[in-house]
């Protein structure tokens, strides 16, 4: 149990340090370099794409169900978002389709 507590503390501290690192380096009065501001502006666009792939990293296209549930649901999310522009609806619709395909079809 003590071991679990120690590891929990370590994981907590490391995560907090990573999340607060840039803020600690650039406290209120220190000017943020132009390069970091540039990255700060461009990164959000790039990271969301990275997270989509990150979520799908363990989908296998070589074995049953060949990634079909994820592919179909992903297409549904994108199409719903294009035609309805309502994120909640897109997320809900895609998830329900994925659950249906995983549980009832494959």
């Amino acid at each position, binding site marked *: 149990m003590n071991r679990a507590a120690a590891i929990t503390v370590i994981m*907590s501290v490391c995560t907090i340090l990573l999340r607060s690192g840039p803020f600690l380096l650039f406290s209120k009065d220190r000017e943020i370099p132009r390069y970091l501001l540039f990255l700060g502006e461009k990164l959000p666009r790039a990271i969301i794409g990275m997270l989509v792939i990150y979520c799908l990293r363990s989908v296998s296209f070589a074995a049953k169900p060949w990634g079909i549930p994820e592919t179909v649901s*992903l297409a549904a999310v994108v199409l719903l978002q294009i035609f309805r522009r309502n994120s909640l609806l897109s997320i809900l619709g895609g998830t329900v389709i994925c659950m249906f395909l995983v549980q009832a079809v494959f």
Partner: protein
Amino acid sequence: MFLHACRGIIFVMNDRWKQIRKAWITSLPVMAGYVVLGTGFGILLKNAGYGVWCSLAMALFIYAGSLQYAGISLITGGASLLNAAVTSVIVNARHLFYSISMLGKYRNAEYKPYLIFALTDETYSLLSSDAAADETDFFCFMVSLFNHSYWVAGCVLGSLAGSFLPFSTEGIEFSMTALFAASFTEQWLSDRDHTAALCGLISTLLCLLVFGSENFLIPAMLVITAVLTFLGKKEGSI
């Protein structure tokens, strides 16, 4: 005078209430995913021999999904503290990115310590979008708090209810993918320049193919930074 003060207070309360409501609606897409993934974590931790207090502490103080899942095997496998620290840094290195891109928005914000602590993948994707650009610090604080509470609720629920769930939730973890895919599409529709979005997507995909599903994230972050830097230098913005 008294009436005037009352009106003022009611106005402020009303405004706060509206923002809390709006924050709750904004956070809703995260709820299902966090409760389910949190429950999954609680169940696994329970099966590994650690109960509700451990689950609660980890959800409250670590608040990072993939690291907590990795943490279970660290704890049961008897990993050293150094090993735990290295794993934490590798698994959560992407959080550095979030902080860098929120530097401008959060640097002088109210509730700054909590906003930074609670900057998970999902909270980041909700609050870094253009839609949230003009929102108040209080709104960001409430979105962060709602998301955190879903995660804690899930982890505790999993530990307590364990395997007694009455229905199958298989496939519900897709809600996280759907959240990111929806915000990717929304950004795509509202942007004219798609260079950064394509850079993120293609670099990560290539790194996944080259490095495999266990080790691709850090190379992907390096490649994304390098490509963005190169493009920025080329067009002269840095």
